[in-house]
């Protein structure tokens, strides 16, 4: 090696370095997805089969009554898919990175561990939209159902809804840093997401304060009734933003505290 290997200035502030980090994480995630296509396809297929069982089973049992709620089920499943991808991308990834021995390398980035995890979260949201889109399309083709997919409405409402789940993901990622083997808890939370997505916020308004619940209601209305973003009441959108920002902030705080505690206990890179 010659001069080319000598240390070079490191730039981590400003938009370009931040974008480079995002691009590097996205490239890595994408490479892992396409390098093992069977694994990726089987995950997608598993989600699709799960929906197909609900759809064909529901048709057989519920008949016409099932058809009335089909649109809401599709929207709910679409949101569930995106939520799972975004949430597990954080919570499970921390566990996997610790297993692989790469977690400490992420911590040692001059961008800061928080920013690296934020970049991972942002990439996870993009991937969750991609997976959600594929599943949504499959569901619509299978059922012959049509829904309003106005991106100007669906994208921001979808992203803000997922943001609250990301906050939960950060909390559990933080717990995984300290307590390690909590995969069973991760799975329980995934079931809880089903309940949150189906939460009856009209009947019990307080449920809007829970993650996913408000966003799920708005997304359902937007996709089944064609309501546009600007047609929602300001209070409804405000509540969505509040829960998104609130849960993200709580998640970031807990994650920060947990990573500090993991370093104090000397267990950051352990699994």
């Amino acid at each position, binding site marked *: 090696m010659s001069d080319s*290997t000598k240390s*070079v200035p490191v730039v981590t502030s400003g938009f370009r370095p931040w974008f480079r980090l995002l691009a590097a994480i996205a490239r890595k995630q994408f490479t892992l997805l396409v390098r093992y296509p069977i694994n990726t396809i089987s995950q997608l297929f598993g989600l699709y089969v799960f929906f197909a069982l609900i759809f064909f089973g529901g048709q057989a049992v519920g008949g016409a009554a099932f058809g009335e709620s089909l649109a809401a089920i599709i929207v709910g499943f679409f949101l569930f898919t995106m939520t799972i991808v975004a949430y597990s991308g954080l919570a499970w990834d921390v566990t996997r990175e610790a297993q692989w*021995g790469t977690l400490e390398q992420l911590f040692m980035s001059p*961008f800061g561990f928080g920013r690296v995890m934020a970049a991972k979260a942002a990439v996870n949201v993009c991937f969750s939209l991609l997976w959600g889109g594929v599943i949504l399309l499959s569901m619509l083709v299978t059922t012959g159902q049509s829904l309003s997919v106005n991106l100007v409405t669906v994208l921001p409402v979808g992203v803000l809804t997922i943001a609250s789940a990301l906050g939960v993901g950060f909390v559990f990622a933080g717990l995984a840093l300290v307590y390690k083997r909590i995969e069973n808890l991760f799975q329980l939370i995934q079931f809880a997401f089903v309940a949150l997505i189906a939460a009856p916020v009209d009947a019990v308004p307080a449920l809007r304060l829970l993650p996913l619940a408000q966003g799920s209601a708005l997304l359902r209305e937007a996709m089944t009734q064609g309501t546009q973003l600007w047609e929602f009441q300001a209070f409804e959108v405000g509540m969505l933003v509040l829960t998104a920002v609130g849960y993200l902030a709580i998640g970031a705080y807990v994650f920060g505290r947990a990573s500090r505690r993991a370093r104090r206990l*000397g267990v950051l890179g352990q699994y």
Partner: protein
Amino acid sequence: MSDTGRPPAISVRNLTKVYGDEADGGVRAVSDLSLDIETGTVVGLLGPNGAGKTTAIKCMLGLVVPTTGEVSIHGIDVHTETRRAYRRVAAMLEGARNVYWRLSVRENLDFFASLGGQERAEARTRQNRLLEQLGLAEKADTPVNDLSRGMKQKASLAATLSRGTDVVFLDEPTLGLDVESSLELRRELRRLAERESMTIVLSSHDMDVVEDVCDRVVIVDDGEIVADDTVENLIDLFRTQSYRLVLGGEVPSNTRETLESTYEAAEWEQLGDDGRIDRTRVTVSVADGDELYDLLGLLRRDGVSLRNIDSVDPDLAEVFLGLTDRSGGPNVRPNQSPASGESTESPESPVAIDASESVSDGGDQ
């Protein structure tokens, strides 16, 4: 501060790490550890399993929060200015585990360079050189998972060096490497230190590697520094203190007792043919030449003939075992002043080894 007025590449002051509450069965993994490492030096950090070196390394890297003490990299406090410090330091921990095995070698290098905040184009030039130097060019597009153990190790090292920092911590860098690769790597580490002023802290159980590569060795035991000096000085401390004697016939019991109590005689071996013992081999330790003459006088007085005498040249492994009290025998011990019995200090660096307890304070330099 160093002679140049610049802060040392790594400065550790009174580093202590206690896991849990000491009064309640907590573990003191690192105890009041202090050292300075100058730019462009390769320092070997040695210690038996459980000695506290991993905790010490992780504290130096900011991955473990110390109970007390400070660590700075080029004057930047690792625990309060973490992000700034990580512009200057990278680490290869846990052998080949710190890369993504599903990504190719080049993809890993790309990723870690970006994680280190480097421009992709600039990083690419460095990566190509690294791949060439470490013999990975042909395997650049192979997933790490498909590489041999040694190649995985090299990929891991390349990923660490791809960050382009001027301080690098390497944990067992030659683990799993074949002899040729290990030698190549040693040359490369020396070159990085000498020509590119890279500061390298190397932890290894391979004493040959440490002896070959390191300018200085810090030996840690029970969380404390027990020796801190150049490899040469450490070996000198143990050199010519031990002799292997071949004595005629069997040694009388009273002579044997004196040899054992005064000269730490050990490794007794009776030699001969056809069941007849005609020689006895034994290893003894003496503090200096005068003591050797005393020993010879004792043998003459007791009528024991001396057939042969060889000095036992220690290597770093013996120094290590001697200092960490894991030699299993008394034949290796550090030099000590015969007059006072006090520790001997190297004129070049402040090693201070207490001969009786094998404990030194490598702190202030």
